[in-house]
């Protein structure tokens, strides 16, 4: 029997949900794998919700919004494109295929497009096979943590504004450049979260970490310095041995 992917779709009420309705009214047939959740706008989709769905076992997540310029709430879809673009990018860091997350524009009159989209996405997921999320739980958890970080969320949230209107100094950054900055900040945050996860239960050395995370040792060391400053890591350094590190448990931290 062919693999039946589990596909979760977040569709905005005004365009893509209506497009899915039209697919129904027009009797356009498509695979039954998708489970739709209606939201008011694609801008509602916090990247954390996507990661959550992947952690829970979704093989794919589709986010549907209105075409650029058509968002019922002016620019929610634009905000979504920044946030979800970033999410797709950092999934790769955790070893999850970014093709598992897709942001698509579907208008209320594009029933055919919606049906085609679901068929296509289901096919892609079938080819990718079952999600490897179970084996990548550490990575996904680190992503979730990174995406919950204040500094990063503030940066992502301001992205649109900095590109469109400029920052407080009036500088306008090119979109590509900013995406790059945000991506690197996210990567940093992700790697630090990863270190904290790997060092949660037992002491680990820089070398261990570097190997398990596939990140150069000097980079790991840089992170460790920061985490030590923030008092998130303890160090064990018996004479004659390489130092090892362990996460300091903070009350209530998951």
């Amino acid at each position: 029997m062919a693999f039946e992917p589990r596909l979760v779709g977040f569709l905005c009420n005004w365009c893509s949900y209506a497009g899915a309705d039209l697919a129904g009214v027009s009797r356009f047939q498509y695979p039954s794998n998708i489970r739709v959740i209606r939201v008011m706008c694609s801008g509602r989709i916090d990247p954390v919700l996507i990661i959550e769905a992947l952690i829970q076992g979704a093989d794919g997540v589709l986010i549907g919004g209105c075409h650029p310029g058509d968002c019922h709430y002016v620019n929610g879809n634009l905000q979504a494109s920044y946030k979800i673009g970033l999410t797709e990018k950092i999934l790769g860091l955790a070893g999850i295929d970014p093709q598992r997350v897709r942001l698509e524009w579907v208008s209320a009159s594009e029933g055919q497009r919606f049906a085609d989209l679901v068929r296509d996405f289901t096919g892609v997921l079938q080819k990718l096979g079952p999600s490897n999320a179970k084996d990548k739980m550490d990575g996904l958890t680190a992503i979730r943590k990174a995406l919950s970080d204040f500094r990063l969320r503030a940066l992502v949230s301001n992205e649109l504004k900095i590109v469109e209107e400029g920052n407080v100094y009036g500088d306008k950054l090119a979109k590509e450049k900013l995406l790059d900055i945000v991506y690197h900040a996210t990567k940093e945050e992700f790697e630090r979260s990863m270190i904290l996860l790997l060092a949660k239960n037992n002491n680990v050395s820089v070398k261990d970490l570097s190997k398990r995370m596939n990140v150069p040792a000097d980079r790991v060391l840089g992170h460790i310095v920061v985490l030590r400053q923030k008092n998130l890591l303890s160090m064990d350094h018996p004479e004659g041995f390489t130092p090892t590190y362990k996460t300091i448990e903070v009350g209530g931290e998951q």
Partner: protein
Amino acid sequence: MAEKNETKDKPRIGVFVCHCGSNIGGFVDVPSVAEYAKTLPDVVYATDNLYTCADDGLTAIREGIRKHNLNRVIVASCTPRTHAPLFQATCESAGLNKYLFTFVNIREHCSWVHMKEKDKATRKARDLIRMGVARARLLEAQEEAKVDVAATGLVIGGGVSGMTAALSLADMGFPVHLVEKEGELGGFVKNLNNLYVTEKSATETIKPLIEKVKAHKNIKLHLNSTMKSVEGFIGNYNVVIGTKGEEDTKAKIGTIIVATGALEFVPEGLYGYNQYPNVVTLTEFEILCKKKTLPKLKNVAFVQCVGSRGQNKSYCSRICCNVGIKNAINIVDNYENMLGLMEKAGTVVEKIPVEQKVPDEILDRRRRRRGRERGEEGEAEEAKLGPSEKIEVTVFNRDVMAYGVEHELTYNKSREKRVKFVRYTPEHLPRVYMEGNQLTVGYFHETLKLERTMPVDMVILATPLVAQPDAGELSQMLKVPLGQEGFFLEAHVKLRPVDFATDGIYVCGTCRGPSDITECVTQAAAAASRAAIPLSKGYVLAEAIASEVNTDLCVGCGICATLCPYSAITVERGPKGMKAVVIKAACKGCGACGAGCPEKAMTMLHYTDEQLIVEGLAGIKEVVL
């Protein structure tokens, strides 16, 4: 208060699965789905109905609520986009807050799109209901707060549209502020000579309107003025009106109508415009006619669709064909009236067109024949057509859009008056150049498939109406969108043509796209009546699907405020320090703030993170958290 208790009580969920005749029942095993629903947590009642939206279906819901003491209702049937209001009202009539109702779509999203896979469709229907149950358990009753409305209108723009809208509101008894950028009322019509399909002068036509506006006791007119700032939301806008050389006016406004009009596209670099003296735009031509300063002409060419329909602008400007025809007829009929410099030697171009010079006798015969065909005296027709002998008018067009009843008649009239229509295609645009001292139009004759030339004295370019250059500023100030071409964009192209998606702001006239005066007046009356609804009601219900700040988590960073497309969030100092404050009446519930808040301090009521996560989980696994 009773409603709040419903929320706190342990959920008692009732599930109503609809057959929709055979629309769902034919492709999904509905009874088994209803049976399955009974096994889900907190579901105390589940049934299937032939048509849930029919009387007996709705009665079943009401009775279910009463008999089983339901505090959550799920209907699994068609789409919430059409049927949610009906079921919500049914719940409310049985005393259940409408936000405790959950819609599960098993028709458009299931039975109709998996018609050949009954097993899979049935499994999906079950999953969708499980998702609904997971969501329903976490729902909370919501209240739609009543917000008072300041019963004063604001109209921006004092053209025909703005004046009409202001008068309508004023006649209904509402005070209106009318803000006009320039020193006088009238807008674009001030430039025009006469108005199709009448022959009356434009100035005379709008004079009564201007006088009424000026005299109306309910209209406060602000000339030389613009809106400097606006904040607030429907019913409660705080507007600052800036007037040149005067103190700012502050006003509390209930609803706003945007009527800022449009401008004529300037065909810089096209068809010899600004290069040769007698190449003018339609508006410039009307101004010359109005001021009676036309040079003497023998041969006039109109070029239609200059810069529109895929050239500089993508759209058809809708009015220019008819404005072109109007002016072509004017030239033939009233040309002598509009002449100013006739006697002045030098400006007179005295060349008889070489091309298609039909001998006078033949022309006369043709004319008399046309007259006889219409049962008129040959002589009368002759008199009417008098001046046309002296002037040739050619309209180069892509195709003539003389839509509707009157315009087609006018077009026919122009044909009778010997106005020539010559077609061109976008591949073969006409060219305007100087042949020695002679202004000339070169064109490709589509029927003869030949290059031709036509010496002319004047070329009139029909260019499209274009958006006001400062429309973007206004759009940002008011948080209302512009379409791709810079015109204001209505909420729904078919069903809400004069509303913006933002409640409390409306639009009419050429600022939302090319339209003529008849259309502007219609739109203006429509916008005024839409704007009057909240004003006369005196209150609006605030959307309950809105954001809510957790003041313990909020750090007052203000990021949510920058993300909100509706300025519905301010950051204010309170007992706990700087915190975000949501203006419920302005929030539209898009959720952008919640998705962006770095502290996750924003909850989207009715679409909380938890609700979305459990719904997703229930869709992935057979669990209800």
